[in-house]
């Protein structure tokens, strides 16, 4: 079961989550969204569902599922 869900259409690529993630599970994907932003991606194998990304995201991209 997934630990984390990303509503990627909201992502503006600010990078707060990438800087904040204690396990380096988040990174820029290089995929440019419809709005022109380099959006983030998650490596679930590294994610510990700590919620840091949820807390620092200004655009409510993240949902922590467990």
């Amino acid at each position, binding site marked *: 079961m997934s630990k984390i869900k990303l509503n990627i259409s909201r992502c503006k690529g600010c990078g*707060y989550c990438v800087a904040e993630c204690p396990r380096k599970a988040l990174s820029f994907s290089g995929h440019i969204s419809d709005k022109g932003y380099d959006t983030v991606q998650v490596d679930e194998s590294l994610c510990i569902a700590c919620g840091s990304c*949820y807390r620092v995201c200004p655009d409510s991209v993240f949902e922590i599922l467990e």
Partner: protein
Amino acid sequence: MKLKAPESVFSSASFCPGCGHGLASRLIGEVAEELGIQHSLVTVVDVACCSFNIDYWKFDTIMAAHGRDIPTAVGVKHVRPGSSVLAYMGDGAAYSIGMAETIHAALRNDNICVIVINNSVFGMTGGQMAPTTLPGEKTATSPKGKDPTRYGTLSGVELLKHMDIAYLARGELVGSAGMIKAKKLIKSAFQHQLKGDGFSLVELLSPCPTNLNLPPVKARDFVHNEMTKYFPTGVFIDKGGVE
């Protein structure tokens, strides 16, 4: 721990990447739901960037004239004392054009919550110098850096410290720890209003990457490393001790 954006917040689509407003709006939604006041809350938002929240919050909301959020909110609170009332504005509204309104609502100890987003500049108009701009900080109207011999740097919180109000605190919308703390401050402010204690003001230091001309993470670091030197975080008044 399950974490999901609050139902009371639609989105934050119009804010620039890394803008602190999206963070503050979400925290307000989370606090409203945790306190169970989301269906009675009335919010008053200032013009410019603050006013985007009128479309993002599922709260009854009034858009106020620049710097007049506080009297507008006080008018609502008198008529609807059963509603929690929030005035949400920037530092220009609270400490420049609306300074008199801020001080006098505190003097009357009006029973409302005020949240001030302090990003050290006038945001929507393009990053001009504000009373909160740091000495030497370059802005659109201080291109060589703010000259401290001509323009001082104002801490609104410092001015309010000695007033007889319910709650006064400053947090920063930076990092996971900063966000957890900021949420606690917002919650305490609303708890004071629910108890009828009077005026609460929470200032939130907030990154404005666009107008600081910095990538978001660097703007965030500016808030944490530079702004806090002039605007220390903490709880300064907590009447009767909600916290």
